[in-house]
């Protein structure tokens, strides 16, 4: 295909197009690249804030007994760590990628609703600020776990209404972001960019957007009822008035299970984008990837009570949720086989983005398998609320979502900045992360199987050895991420000094429109739609 020529890139129809001067630029911007950058920078900052909380948790668990923090504060840390990582780091990071990449991937001049885009970002910031402010309140931050189960969460001090309103703000932010993404994908594609020609990252975000709009209001409703139960005398979750605390769990997990797919589907999308480039082959099974994503999204709505096997559901419920959950392994398996088949007999090279992606395929599969183990209801009576489940979801989130976010960073930073990152340090970052993440989380499987409960600051001495090993892995993992911070800053400031080409990676232009644009791309791109659509992935 021919590269998109400069006239496609610099052509403007309006008269007011440069960014505003100074810091104000970032406050009032409507540009998808600016907003993407804001989201990514914010997410990275929150990744470290959440990371410090994780370090506190691992420090306390280094040895049995109470070392550094009070139990209440320890539980605040597990709660806040999860909330900050989920709502402050992983989700915003993917929204940032969506902002940067979707318009460039589908040949659109910007997001469909640019003003709302700006508002989504600032709502996110204010939601996270409200949440963070609870750290300094009487009674401390919420400490009932990120699931905010009543009746325990109703014992929270002054923090409760702030946490509830924070969820509302984050919810509005996510819904606006999702609406924007969906409208962009449906309405802003360049001529010829048919749905089945879209890069998988775009597809997975389309489906994720739908999930978000469907579930964020559900979470908002659930916490609203917490608020009224606490302050307005309702008894939604109080059996004395005819309500039921288990009802909260049903509502929460109706949100919560699709929510974990909100974090993993875009991950799948990025992996499907990166692996073919470094395997120098088209993605294996493009359309099966699309259908698998859609099936996972559909199934995610009908499996929620696998988080509640031990609450005393009727047996029919246990069985139904067990089998339905197992079904998810099928489309997930399709994806894993497709990535493997994409690499099969490819001319692979192992630059940092590819290393992180391969690690993702392997380690995510681990998380999928433990998920399958827990989906067996009778077995889950043993695993539930132990470190086994902590190991499960960290395998699906850290060496999966977070690794792929790292991969995305390495993959697109040269495009965004026009500079090449330092490959040596990148590889070092990868190997340190990949080894330490396993030292950190693998032992937690053993701890859980042996019966160590989650969310406790102290434990029986028989768990001491694996906890210490896990903590050591945690410290190494945490410290290694500083390398990533260094690389990001270094690359923005010039990196290796090597001039990167438009396509950056060999033949990348066959895989996506973004590689036909200059590196870095100008402030406005595709103000007139491109005419040639890459079709390599089909």
């Amino acid at each position, binding site marked *: 295909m021919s590269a998109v020529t400069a006239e496609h890139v610099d052509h403007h129809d309006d008269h007011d197009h440069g960014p505003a001067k100074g810091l104000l630029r970032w406050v009032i911007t409507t540009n998808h690249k600016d907003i993407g950058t804001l989201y990514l920078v914010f997410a990275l900052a929150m990744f470290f804030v959440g990371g410090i909380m994780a370090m506190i948790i691992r420090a306390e668990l280094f040895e049995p007994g109470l070392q550094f923090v009070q139990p209440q504060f320890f539980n605040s840390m597990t709660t806040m760590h999860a909330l900050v990582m989920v709502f402050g780091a992983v989700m915003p990071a993917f929204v940032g990628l969506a902002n940067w990449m979707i318009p460039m991937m589908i040949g659109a001049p910007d997001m469909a609703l640019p003003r709302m885009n700006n508002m989504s970002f600032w709502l996110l910031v204010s939601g996270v600020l409200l949440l963070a402010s609870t750290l300094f309140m009487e009674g401390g931050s919420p400490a009932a776990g990120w699931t905010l189960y009543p009746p325990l969460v109703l014992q929270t001090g002054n923090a409760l209404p702030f946490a509830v*309103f924070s969820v509302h703000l984050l919810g509005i932010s996510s819904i606006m972001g999702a609406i924007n993404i969906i409208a962009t994908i449906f309405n802003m594609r360049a001529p010829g960019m048919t749905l089945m020609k879209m890069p998988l990252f775009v597809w997975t975000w389309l489906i994720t957007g739908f999930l978000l709009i469907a579930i964020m209001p559900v979470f908002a409703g659930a916490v609203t009822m917490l608020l009224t139960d606490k302050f307005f005398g309702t008894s939604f979750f109080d059996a004395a008035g005819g*309500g039921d605390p288990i009802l909260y769990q049903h509502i929460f997990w109706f949100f919560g299970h699709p929510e974990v797919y909100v974090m993993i589907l875009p991950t799948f999308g990025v992996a499907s984008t990166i692996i073919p480039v470094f395997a120098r082959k088209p993605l294996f099974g493009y359309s099966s990837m699309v259908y698998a994503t859609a099936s996972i999204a559909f199934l995610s709505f009908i499996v929620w009570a696998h988080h509640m096997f031990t609450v005393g559901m009727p047996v029919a419920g246990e069985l139904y949720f067990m089998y339905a959950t197992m079904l998810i392994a099928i489309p997930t398996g399709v994806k894993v086989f497709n990535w493997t088949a994409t690499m099969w007999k490819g001319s692979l090279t192992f630059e940092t983005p590819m290393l992180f992606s391969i690690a993702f395929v392997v380690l995510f599969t681990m998380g999928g398998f433990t998920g399958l183990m827990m989906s067996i209801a009778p077995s889950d009576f043993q695993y539930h609320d132990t470190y086994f489940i902590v190991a499960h979801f960290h395998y699906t989130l850290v060496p999966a979502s977070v690794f792929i976010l790292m991969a995305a960073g390495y993959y697109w930073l040269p495009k965004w900045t026009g500079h090449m990152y330092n490959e040596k340090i990148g590889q070092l970052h990868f190997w340190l992360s990949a080894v330490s993440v396993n030292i950190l989380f693998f032992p937690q499987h053993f701890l859980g199987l042996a019966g160590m409960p989650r969310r406790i600051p102290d434990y029986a001495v028989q768990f001491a050895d694996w906890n210490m090993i896990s903590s050591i892995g945690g410290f190494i993992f945490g410290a290694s991420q500083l390398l990533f911070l260094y690389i990001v800053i270094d690359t923005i400031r010039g990196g290796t000094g090597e001039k990167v080409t438009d396509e950056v990676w060999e033949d990348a232009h066959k895989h996506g429109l973004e590689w036909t644009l200059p590196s870095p791309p100008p402030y406005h791109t595709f103000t007139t739609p491109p005419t040639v659509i890459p079709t390599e992935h089909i």
Partner: protein
Amino acid sequence: MSTNVAYYIPHKATWPVIATAGLVTMLAGFANYLNGSSIGPTLMVVGLVIFIVMLAGWFTLQSGESESGMYNTQVGISYRMGMMWFIFSEIMFFAVFFGTLYYTRNLSVPWLGGEGTGAATKELLWPTFEATWPTNGPKGLGVDASGARTFGAEFEPMGAWGLPFLNTLILLTSGVTCTWAHHGLLAKNRDQLIKGLIATVALGFTFVAFQAFEYHEAYTEMGLTLGSGIYGSTFFMLTGFHGFHVCIGAIILSVVLFRSTRGHFKPENHFAFEAAAWYWHFVDVVWLGLFVFVYLM
């Protein structure tokens, strides 16, 4: 894409940050108020003022842009999609409370009464509890005049055929007047457009007034409050959020009415009217659900 005007991309937006500031001030104020802090109400008022100014400013900006023809068909499609998905999110929000009503009526209350796996629970905890609907639970929760928790309270459930039925007729009629106004707009009959909108807005606010009256009756005459166990909780939560949405819808329609009197909207370009009308019909349909599941059944 079919028009020759390029897709309009606004630059340097100030209203979104102001909107966020207003919203977060209001919520922080509300949270402080709930915690008993004295700055709460002040913050809430400040936030509300910021928010109202923002609404006026942002609406003016958008309608000005729309009227000066800056939005092509493709922009219009983006706005319509935005509105449709927003309404979908609202449907999911209401689904939570309808789901809660379903769950408590059909599962948790019968379980408390000993059904299914609840036999032991009933025997051990509340052996005398009879699972019926409406209920304020095994402990008969209620609140007294001072707002304090009471037990073994009695209350009278809300009937369907008085004010609620009248309100159903009102909302259904307002749906008709709204559509009639739309026909006026399409037929370039501005008089019909404005009259239709006035009727719709008036019916909307009448609905809210009747609802307020109904709440007053409930609190003062029937012993039915938000604290009346699960019946009171679901009743006021569902009807309350619905009433709040009627207010929002009526305010949006008022803005559309105001713009109509200023000569805004053309038969081929009237997104704001459509959005308001969709929203109004959505609120209408939710009410029908409420009437059946909350009042009738």
